[in-house]
């Protein structure tokens, strides 16, 4: 905001200042322990208003724990977080009034119709009576479910249920919408249609969106993303900037003898390679120029080659040393252990 000065150079009388736009979300020094397991180990970030901010990481990285703290469903062990300028611990109810939530698992009542689910929500959030009907129509139109509003939710497909949940999360016009893995468990076509609705929503409402995902392609929809691994943020920037920071092409080859190929790459080419997703994987400055050399000099038979431009996968790999799918596999043991502990506490 530029301050005005008059021709004499004297400061102008204070103009009616536009209301400050504090960040939608601030997080500082946040940690969360479950027993002796550190789910979140000291994270700091801010999300500007109107931004779509993505939390990217494998399962068990601390995404869900962070979102739970921001939604007032879990208390931080240490550190502080605010949402819409309100403290998530001391102003819990006020935070709840200002956020919309769409969880990973469905929280709809299958025995009610779509409209009845929304009306239930409107009453719980004390939406002014006169606004309930028009607002219901608006959010249902937005997700394309107005015609199906009087059908029981049990007759909805998985994608329709997720859309209804998004509509419900928006019903009370929250400042921040939290989407925890909004497309998990949906087929690719439904996933992309959900993203169409989310993008339309960004265009129509002045809303901040905070989402978690472990799909790389979804993170591309975000204005900024934070990569989280083992409870810590390892990188935070726009998807483009993150990809530019990696800068190298990724080469994956399938060979007759992976171990020998890795050895030869290290010896003859001076390239460090590893096995990821069942193929010998490494990064080089220019993939197209490197592949002919590879065929000429590698003694191990090559069955297939793929070269890819830096993607968020590579960004993830360069910051964490593993691909997200490999990380998922090793994290699942950790998750089971953690889930068992949490259950044990209840």
């Amino acid at each position, binding site marked *: 905001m530029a301050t005005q000065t008059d021709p004499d150079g004297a400061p102008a009388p204070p103009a009616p200042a536009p209301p400050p736009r504090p960040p939608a979300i601030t997080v500082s020094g946040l940690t969360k322990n479950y027993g002796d397991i550190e789910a979140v180990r000291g994270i700091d970030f801010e999300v500007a208003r109107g931004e779509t901010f993505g939390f990217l990481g494998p399962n068990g990285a601390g995404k869900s724990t962070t979102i739970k703290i921001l939604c007032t469903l*879990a*208390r931080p062990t240490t550190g502080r977080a605010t949402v819409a*300028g309100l403290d998530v611990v001391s102003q819990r109810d006020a935070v709840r009034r200002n956020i919309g939530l769409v969880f990973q698992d469905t*929280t*709809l009542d299958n025995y009610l119709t779509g409209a*009845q689910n929304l009306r239930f929500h409107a009453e*719980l*959030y004390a939406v002014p009576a006169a606004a309930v009907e028009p607002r219901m129509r608006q959010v249902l139109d937005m997700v394309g479910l107005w015609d199906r509003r009087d059908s029981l939710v049990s007759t909805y497909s998985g994608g329709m249920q997720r859309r209804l949940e998004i509509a419900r999360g928006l019903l009370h016009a929250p400042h921040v919408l939290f989407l925890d893995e909004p497309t998990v468990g949906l087929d690719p076509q439904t996933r992309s249609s959900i993203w169409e609705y989310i993008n339309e929503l960004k265009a129509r409402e002045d809303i901040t969106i905070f989402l978690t995902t472990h799909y790389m392609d979804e993170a591309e929809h975000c204005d900024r993303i934070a990569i989280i691994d083992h409870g810590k943020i390892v990188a935070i920037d726009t998807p483009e900037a993150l990809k530019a920071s990696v800068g190298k092409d990724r080469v994956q080859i399938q060979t007759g003898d992976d171990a020998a190929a890795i050895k030869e790459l290290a010896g003859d080419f001076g390239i460090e390679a590893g096995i990821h997703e069942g193929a010998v994987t490494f990064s080089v400055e220019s993939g197209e120029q490197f592949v002919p050399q590879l065929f000429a000099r590698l003694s191990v038979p090559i069955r297939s080659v793929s070269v890819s431009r830096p993607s968020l996968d590579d960004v993830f790999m360069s910051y964490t040393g593993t691909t997200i799918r490999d990380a998922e596999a090793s994290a699942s043991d950790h998750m089971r252990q953690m889930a068992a502990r949490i259950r044990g506490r209840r």
Partner: protein
Amino acid sequence: MATQTAQPGEAVTADAALATQIRVAVPQRSLRSDLRAISIVWRRELIRFRRDRLRAVTSLIQPLLFLVVLGTGLSSLAGASMPPGVDFKTFIFPGVLAMSVLFTAVFSAASIVWDREFGFLREMLVAPVSRSSIVIGKTLGGATIATFQGVIMLALAWIAHVPYNPVLILTLIGELLLLSFTITAFGVMMAARITQFQAFMALTQMLVFPLFFLSGALYPLTGLPGWLSVLTRIDPLTYVVGPMRHAVFAHLDLNPLFVAHLSPSITWLGWPVPIWLCLAIVATMGLSLLGVAIAEFSRTE
């Protein structure tokens, strides 16, 4: 969007910049918003009950079996100790009414466990309303449904030769409502702790049958051996079945001696407990259980 947080009382404000968007300001939490929450949780129970006709029918079967089959079958045996002209079915009718309410109320409370398994409980628990309004709404909803089941059973009073006297009917409905409330509150309290549906049903069944059998629903509370006499006085259901049977027998044209034998006052070491105290005990119990249930649900994150 002009302001960060909504001011109380601020209703819908038109937003020129976003003409298509309907602005909604969610007001501060107040007694009124808590009442709205209670009301919608209560209404949801009724909507779901109306959808589930099968449940309404099946929960009538067990009490009807007790009344018609057990009542008829045992009447040849029990008939010997019944005064002439009094059917054994008339005697057990108040107990059967209590039974129909008992099972429906417990099952209503089980819906919390169900909601938790299917995720809907979370939608309620993350809302900006007090936990007590959710628990109260659930309890009132369950109590309403259970009372309704009792009223259907009451409509079948002719089977047991119980007269359709308006005063009697209203008295019985009031007592059924009280019982429904207390049992639902008990179930809701259990549902706060028990998170698995199977475990909840197993545990409540295990508790409900002793409650029923010890209440004097099927036998008079006179001339019992000491141990059973003590157990019947501990059973809260006794304090509803007793007053209900008292009301039924007061509307039959009978010799007071028979009434004293079949529907005696509940006594504590020989002191007859007045009807109002019986009902006050049940009400106090219901309110205390509700208090515990609210505390339990407020404790969880």
